[in-house]
């Protein structure tokens, strides 16, 4: 269960405050895979970051007894001057893994991400697709209650996308996802429920299809 209590979140812009959430209270039930929909700039990623505890509401609080992954996006959280391998090792240490486990995880990530020689080269030489592959492979090695995924599935070529999707389907048998995506197909495949973010409010739908319908309505209204 994820509970938002009177959460207000805004950013300062030249035109004044830009509200992402305005005094929002909502309870999101557990044990579901949730897709987050909204127009560009509606605040999907910000909400994701707030759930991952790296962005904080201006007012109110978000509580949950679940563990969340770091937000998996396009290669955030890597240090450019370090090799892919060193970065993987670093994250494993953050999560308190033993040296033996670390070596296993490294072998797994190397194999999954298909980076080849690049795995031993500094991250700054990677393309954004390669970073995304590394990031996604690494996240699969850990168990969280919720994985926060921000468009990572659209990384790489068609074959790799298929592979990631399959890996994720396997993964969500024992964990859940909060997925931000603009690809309705992926959302329908992976998510059961949906959240639509629009004009400072979040709406929860038990069925992802209802959420998609609502999202399309919003898009139509906006023209």
């Amino acid at each position, binding site marked *: 269960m994820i509970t938002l209590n009177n959460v207000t979140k805004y950013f300062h812009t030249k035109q004044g405050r830009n509200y992402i959430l305005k005094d929002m209270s909502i309870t999101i039930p557990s044990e579901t895979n949730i897709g987050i929909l909204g127009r560009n700039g509606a605040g999907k990623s910000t909400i994701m*970051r707030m759930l*991952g*505890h*790296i*962005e*904080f509401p201006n007012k109110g609080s978000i509580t949950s007894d679940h*563990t*969340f992954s*770091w*937000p998996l996006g396009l290669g*955030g*959280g*890597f*240090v450019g*001057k*370090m090799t892919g391998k*060193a970065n993987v090792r*670093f*994250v494993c*240490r*953050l*999560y*308190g893994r033993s040296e033996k486990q670390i070596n296993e995880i490294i072998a797994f990530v190397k194999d999954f991400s298909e980076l080849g020689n690049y795995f031993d080269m500094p991250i700054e030489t990677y393309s954004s697709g390669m970073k995304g592959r590394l990031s996604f492979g690494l996240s699969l090695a*850990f*168990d*969280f*209650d919720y994985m926060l995924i921000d468009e990572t599935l659209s990384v790489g070529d068609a074959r790799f996308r298929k592979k990631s999707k399959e890996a994720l389907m396997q993964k969500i048998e024992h964990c859940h996802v909060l997925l931000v995506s603009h690809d309705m197909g992926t959302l329908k495949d992976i998510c059961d429920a949906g959240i639509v973010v629009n004009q400072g409010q979040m709406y929860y739908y038990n069925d992802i299809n209802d959420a998609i319908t609502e999202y399309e309505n919003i898009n139509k209204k906006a023209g």
Partner: protein
Amino acid sequence: MIARKPLQIFLAVQKALFLRELGMRFSVSKSGLFWTFFEPFMQVLVMVLIKVVLFGKAGDNFDFAAFLALNFTAYNMFRNILTKSMGSFTANKGLFVYKQVKPIDTIIARVMVEVFITGIIILSFIAIGIYFDFDLNIQNLPMVAFGFVWLVLFSFALGLFIAVSNTFYPSIGRSINVIMTFIMFGSAVFYTIEMIPTQIQTLLLYNPLTHFMEMIHGHYFLVLDDRFVDYHYMLLWTLTLLYTGLWFYRRLEERIISL
């Protein structure tokens, strides 16, 4: 995932950050690493030469080379902790996506790396000291060690304070780099306060770092003492900086994370 206790998380984060910082030092910049270890020897050598040229060989009743080695080691540690802490938040911004990494952790890890490097430099000075028969008779080892530990805490407190201010006012960091050069001349690094005229003494003793230097070499050499050291003054600085630094940090932590 098994829930870990806060201390366990803290230690895991510290280990990861420490090894990462150290790895970066060794792998990324080879010349930087060379200078880290070569600089103190150069400083001692140059100052000894300057002194011999200006005042001739005779004079002191203590070993001037050992005096410089001791002071430069302490001063360099202070300077490095300060400059490394200062840029810590911006340099490690990318790591804050992992919620267990708090900005202050990155500073603590950097301080630990500096302490570690200082330890290696001290060991190499001792090795050289033994080989060339420099003065290694320490008057009061526990007090010298305590001086170093206290200096680490003081530098950390100052570093944290500046790091937080620097995040919101970057010009502070730039001015610190300039100020640091002057601080070295005014901190009893290559002289003792006793050698200085009385009027200037009073001025220099406003600088807290002078007290640390006097404390460290005052307890090291048999012929020197800590008569100019005001321990209350040092404590006041340390506690004030630590308190204000932590207070500002607590208030601004969330803003630093989502920078």
